[in-house]
């Protein structure tokens, strides 16, 4: 039965690696300026993890093939070099992997989180709530109106709790259910949650960031391809969680300007 086990392990190793090697589950297209760093890091990790996985299963299979069903009383042998060699191997090889991935992988992280958005980035405020995203643009005056939680009223579509009667900058604010941005321009999202935790996830942007009620978080990105992409909530937020989504609509500058004009009217 040990030999059968060995064969099963080889089949499992090959069958598990096959969909990856054959790219049967490809990453979605990357539409961001930083995404290739994440993809490279993921691919590099895949190679290392894949070799470790397949290698370990094959070694297990080989030893099962060789050392089961032996004649009773067969001489026992020890692994050449014993534990010392294996411990040194683990420290050196895995240690180097850890250093390489750990240190080099920070580039992508730093690109998303450690650089400030440029001053002329398009500012959009995002509010996440059960079970929708709302996006607010400052309007022609370039200033956001103040938020008053007690004035939030879904019925009159005052999602952000604005007070246009008393607050001048709030009067021209544009609120949209879709995140519309111009292509190749940096976007600075200012994120807050209205009720419970949510998350902003766009696969194609290689971005994911939680909304934490009580915290104002910020995220910046540049979308490089025109198109419509799904924004989904990835933080369990209640009964409608699976249905909480919006779209990221990346437009040419001209189309974006037209859209903005329409919204202001």
């Amino acid at each position, binding site marked *: 039965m040990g030999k059968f086990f060995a064969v099963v392990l080889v089949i499992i190793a090959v069958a598990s690696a096959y969909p990856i090697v054959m790219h049967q589950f490809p990453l979605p297209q990357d539409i961001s300026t930083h995404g290739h760093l994440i993809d490279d890091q993921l691919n590099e990790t895949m190679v290392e993890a894949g070799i470790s996985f397949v290698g*370990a299963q094959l070694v297990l299979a080989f030893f099962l093939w060789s050392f089961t069903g032996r004649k009773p009383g067969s001489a026992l042998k020890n692994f050449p070099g014993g*534990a010392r060699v294996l411990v040194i191997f683990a420290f050196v090889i895995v240690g180097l992997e850890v250093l390489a991935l750990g240190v080099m992988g920070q580039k992508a992280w730093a690109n998303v989180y450690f650089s400030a958005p440029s001053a002329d980035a398009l500012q959009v405020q995002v509010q996440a709530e059960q079970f929708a995203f709302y996006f607010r643009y400052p309007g022609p005056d370039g200033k956001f109106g103040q938020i008053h939680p007690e004035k939030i009223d879904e019925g009159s579509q005052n999602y952000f709790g604005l007070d246009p009667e008393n607050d001048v900058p709030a009067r021209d604010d544009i609120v949209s259910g879709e995140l519309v941005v111009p292509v190749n321009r940096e976007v600075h999202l200012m994120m807050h949650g209205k009720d419970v935790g949510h998350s902003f996830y766009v696969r194609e942007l290689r971005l994911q960031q*939680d909304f934490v009620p009580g915290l104002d978080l910020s995220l910046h990105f540049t979308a490089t391809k025109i198109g419509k992409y799904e924004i989904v909530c990835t933080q369990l937020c209640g009964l409608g969680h699976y249905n909480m989504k919006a779209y990221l609509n990346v437009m040419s500058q001209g189309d974006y300007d037209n859209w903005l004009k329409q919204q202001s009217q």
Partner: protein
Amino acid sequence: MSETSAQQAHVHAPPEGFIRKHVFSLDHKVIGKQYYALALVSVVTGMFLSWLMRIHLVWPNAKIPGLELLSKVGAPGGVMTPEYYLSLLTMHGTLMVFFVLTNAPFAAFGNYFLPIQIGAEDMAFPRFNMMSFWTTFAAWVVLMLAFVIPDGPPIAGWTEYAPLSAIGKDAGPGMAWGASLWGISIAIFCIASLLGSLNFIATTLDLRAKGMTLMRMPLCTWAWFITSCISLLAFAVLLPACILLILDRHAGTSFYIPAGLVASDRLQPHSGGSPLLWQHLFWFFGHPEVYIAILPSMGIVSHILINSMRKPLLSAKVVIYSMMSIGFLSYMVWGHHMFVSGMNPMSALAFSFPTLTITIPATILTLIWLGSLYGANIQINSASLFALGFISMFVAGGVSGFFLAQPSIDIYLHATYFVVGHFHMVMGVASLFGVFAGTYFWFPKMTGRMMNEGLGKLHFWITFIGTYCIFMPFHYLGLIGNVRRYQSFVDDYMTPYLGVHKFMTIAALITGAGQLIFLFNLIYSRFKGQPAPENPWNATSLEWSIPSPPPWNNFGGKHPIVYHDPFQYGVKGSKGDFVMQDSPEQVPASGN
């Protein structure tokens, strides 16, 4: 404590009467079996819930006969509602993590075998021990009550993130009393675990037989000991976290709730709290919890492998130190669950490095297991199959951790099926493989009867192959960005992959059904199995030196004397190729 007073502190009279023997028993062996039974009921329930979820995911409108009996509101006419899916998901996770993965490998087997393996008559504090089981049972009852209250179980997942879990009924169905029951149940569970861990530590340190030095303890005893140290520190943090949650829900405090929240069109009457506080406290417990689940199985597997290989591991010391390093590092990595949570992005780097570093002791363990197989004389039986399967599963689940430990990759993979595949394989299934191996190995000692080997092997093949069929595709789906905790896949990009989900559901149904073979074997062998001899596996540790099943006081009032470590295999002894720990025979000095 001197040996005499320590030995006397835990001595109790032979149990008399049904209640003292089988219900409120002080005997660690009965308590171990009670933990096992509770874990068994929980794992069957948890697995059944996962079946319902898997069926719903691929056939959302399927009428499941009888489901309306479980909840009229949650499944009108037998068709599951989206929110009921989340209720089942929460209960599945909670039952599995707390009542199965914490109870079975650690509390059940640890209770039964730790005292025997160190040559003690019982635990250091038998009454505490009884209390810790019945407190755990109370926690289970409170949790299960969530199924029968009108509002149903909570929908916030087993992690119960605040403020969803903290603001009460405004958060949605199940978040009124369902979530309160969850908080109360887990708080009670924490108390039980604290009592249990203290007992394990005191027993290991104080009640070892003459000659049983720490380094002569079997590796599973080591694993239970290290786990009890981890458990003591982890549950001590989750307990206050749950108390604060209950206070937020019922006493109007605001530990986890900031100002200005509007839920269900109502401005919440709270201010000054932080949702991240819950996440920090929860994961400070939550990550060590992963090792509370897996370390005992590592110990059990090592113990069984040595017996099946008929030779010692390359180095027992390295295994012990690796398990200790993993336990130690497990306290420095909780933030890797929170890379995208909004905490300071600098801290992601600080949490990432120790997380990646855990790979080193984990790799050492794997290499020691693998390297030890070289040149062995491996005996194949149900127990060793599951022990060997554990290695395969541990590697498969472990390598995916390498992705998630890196914040830059976690940005993309966080909250996808990749994560679900990772923890199910490594902390769920690998850990359960340890439990299965332990069951096949120790059943003869616990019951005095052998389990059926043919059924055991059939169970192994269905479970081993089935597990890969279910959980490997989880990783692939994570790569395409398939988001977890969704009750249906309404998005276009998922359409080409629905077939994969169907495959996984069918694999889950078959693998789950395969567990019925195990249940049958367990019950049938308990009553009709072949009578077991004292030492059916020619093993060396002390549990095999006493009758099967052991008498109420384990060693019949005698105090065993230990002469060797438990790794004396492949030597010339009077009974064969092994020398038992309590045998005064001379053996060649070993490097272990």
